[in-house]
């Protein structure tokens, strides 16, 4: 394993709404660039009458919740033919802790999700996630944020690198840590964020016997994001964001066929705005590249974009359009990576104060670098949340996924429908 190299994407203003907004860390993150506190989307609107009261523990509040889900999956193994359907039973237990201070804050959460299947015991698994963050307020608009997450998860059967012959879902661990700083002065808001993420995939037993080695997928990623926004007006700001990354794989030749270590860089220039009560959003375009040390692997480069626009046709509806292009890792064949492009449209509708309807469609594209394979991924979903009171929440959802492969070495396509009804008890 190579020693970590120091990134010197320094001397840049910094930070991360674009790109890093999608980082896996669920702890408190800096406010979205376009959010100037003028608008509330349906999803983020506080509903004091239906929010759990929590349990006070000194200067902290604990908010535990337990949920059960009963679902149906018509294609459990994401197969093009001979699909296997099954009923799913999921128990979700989560406890959130948060400080109740006027300055600084500490947030922490522990989640345990247990998945059970009626007929396919091999798919049983339990996910555990622990995450937390702490914010140190320095000045009124300057602060430092540190946080981390550790999770033990199961990979979805339809994931690009998931072995189709695996008898069980591939288990993997994620470790993340980050530190970020934000400072505002005059018309400038500058931020700098450093992330380090490690992925450790566990070997998966194969259905016909044997084990599918997954260690060659393990890697550590370090990301440094610098960002600066210049406010043209109270409504609108120009932004520039530079992100550099270094990806180091646990294994290298001769244990693996390729040295998949790489460094990447992306430049984005854009604008964010919050216009009245009609629209807010952030759009940026630029360039991205990922250079692999092994010259046999293709190094992708090209157009980059990242953006999200929220349109508020009325206070009861939020229409969100988002788009993103980025480089993702894969170990499939001779592919170095794939460029993932995602376009997403979503509507959240507040039918009643305690009844929220959601629906969305998404189109994704995975263009594999160094492999003649292209995946078109379509997704659609619809659901409803019903907040009965502060303690009880009901839900129902449907989700459809369709993989439409193309190329000389296509992946097996699939259609999956999942239905879930849920109930959660919150304190």
């Amino acid at each position, binding site marked *: 394993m190579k020693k970590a190299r120091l990134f010197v994407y320094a001397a840049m203003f910094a930070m991360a709404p674009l790109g890093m907004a999608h980082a896996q860390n669920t702890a408190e993150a800096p406010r979205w660039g376009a959010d100037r506190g003028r608008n509330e989307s349906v999803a983020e609107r506080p509903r004091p009458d239906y929010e759990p009261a929590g349990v006070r523990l000194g200067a902290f509040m604990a908010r535990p919740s337990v949920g059960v889900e009963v679902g149906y999956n018509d294609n459990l193994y994401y197969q093009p033919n001979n699909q296997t359907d099954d009923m799913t039973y999921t128990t979700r237990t989560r406890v959130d802790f948060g400080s109740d201070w006027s300055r600084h804050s500490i947030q922490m959460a522990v989640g345990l999700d247990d998945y059970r299947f009626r007929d396919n015991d091999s798919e049983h698994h339990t996910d555990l996630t622990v995450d937390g963050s702490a914010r140190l307020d320095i000045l009124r608009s300057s602060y430092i944020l540190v946080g981390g997450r550790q999770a033990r998860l199961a990979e979805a059967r339809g994931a690009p690198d998931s072995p189709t012959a695996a008898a069980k879902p591939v288990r993997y661990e994620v470790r993340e840590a980050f530190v970020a700083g934000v400072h505002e002065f005059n018309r400038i808001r500058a931020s700098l964020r450093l992330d380090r993420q490690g992925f450790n995939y566990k070997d998966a037993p194969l259905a016909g016997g044997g084990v599918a080695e997954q260690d060659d997928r393990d890697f550590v990623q370090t990301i440094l994001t610098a960002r600066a926004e210049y406010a043209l007006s109270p409504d609108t700001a120009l932004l520039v964001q530079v992100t550099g990354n270094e990806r180091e794989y646990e294994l290298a030749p001769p244990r693996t066929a390729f040295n998949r270590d790489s460094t990447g860089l992306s430049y984005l220039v854009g604008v964010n705005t919050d216009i009245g009560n009609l629209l807010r959003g952030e759009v940026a375009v630029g360039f991205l590249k990922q250079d692999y040390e092994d010259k046999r692997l293709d190094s992708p480069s090209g157009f980059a974009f990242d953006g999200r626009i929220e349109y508020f046709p*009325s*206070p*009861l509806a939020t229409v969100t359009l988002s788009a993103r292009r980025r480089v993702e890792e894969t170990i499939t064949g001779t592919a170095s990576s794939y460029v993932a492009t995602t376009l997403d449209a979503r509507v959240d509708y*507040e*039918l*009643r*104060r305690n009844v929220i309807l959601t629906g969305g469609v998404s189109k994704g594209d995975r263009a594999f670098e160094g492999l003649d394979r292209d995946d078109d991924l379509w997704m659609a979903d619809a659901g409803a949340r019903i907040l009965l009171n502060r303690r009880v929440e009901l839900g129902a959802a449907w989700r459809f996924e369709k993989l439409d492969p193309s190329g000389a070495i296509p992946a097996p396509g699939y259609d999956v429908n999942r239905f879930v009804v849920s109930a959660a008890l919150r304190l």
Partner: protein
Amino acid sequence: MTRWSARPSGLLALAFTAFLAFSGHSSAVAQTPTSDPRPEVTTPAPTAAPAQTPSATPATPQSTRDDGYVLGVNDRVRVLVFGEASLSGEFLVDSTGRLAMPFIGEIPAAGLTRRALEEAIEKKLAQEEILLDPRVSVDLLNFRPYYILGEVTRPGEYPFTSGLNVFNAVATAGGFTTLANQTRVMIKRQGETTETEYSLLSPVTVEPGDTIRIIKGAFYILGEVSRPGEYPFSEGLTVQNAVATAGGFTYRANQRQVFIKHRNETQERKVRMNASLPVQPGDTIRITERFF
């Protein structure tokens, strides 16, 4: 105790005659009805008609020798028995409506006019053979108080003064509270068992012993407004004003229609919102959620 003779002596008769001749006291003689020497008791002004029957003619006490004022509990009177100082004095109509007088005991007074009370005392004195030909005069010294409660600053019991109307009474009681209905008042007259509602668009006369209740003039607003609650009513208030007073609509408010329940109604009614939709005191306004 001295037992009075059934027939007054000649000396007593002479003294009584001289008293009548020389006395300048206005309450001297009952035998000269055309020049009643008794003091004029201030007569309450005509009472405004109840709000429910604005055209009805109010009962007006007559300002004659017998002015029609009906005595009641807590009235203070002075009884003069001519020539008999020991039978005269100041007396309070007690809670049973009686006067406690020397020698003749309790005399029912509540419900009687002064003239009727004079006759009752004279009759009693004669029956008891205390005086042969008693002459009695009754003066009203103090009216019984009135009572005021409800939406005034200092509710309580206050002494009646002549010419008093509801506005004077409210002023005496510290004025209206912010939630007071300043257009209507409930009054229970003495001797009545139920309240009567009067309009305050013109002054309403207060009578001794009245119980004045200033009702709330608030309106109530609930549902999809920022600050639901009870708010003071003011003349000319519209539903739009009321919503503004309550902090405006919430983002979920149905701004096209409103449900209103008037004070004396049991059912609310759906009304299409418009700029001049009036609010009445006691109205309950409900703003509903919208779906789209």
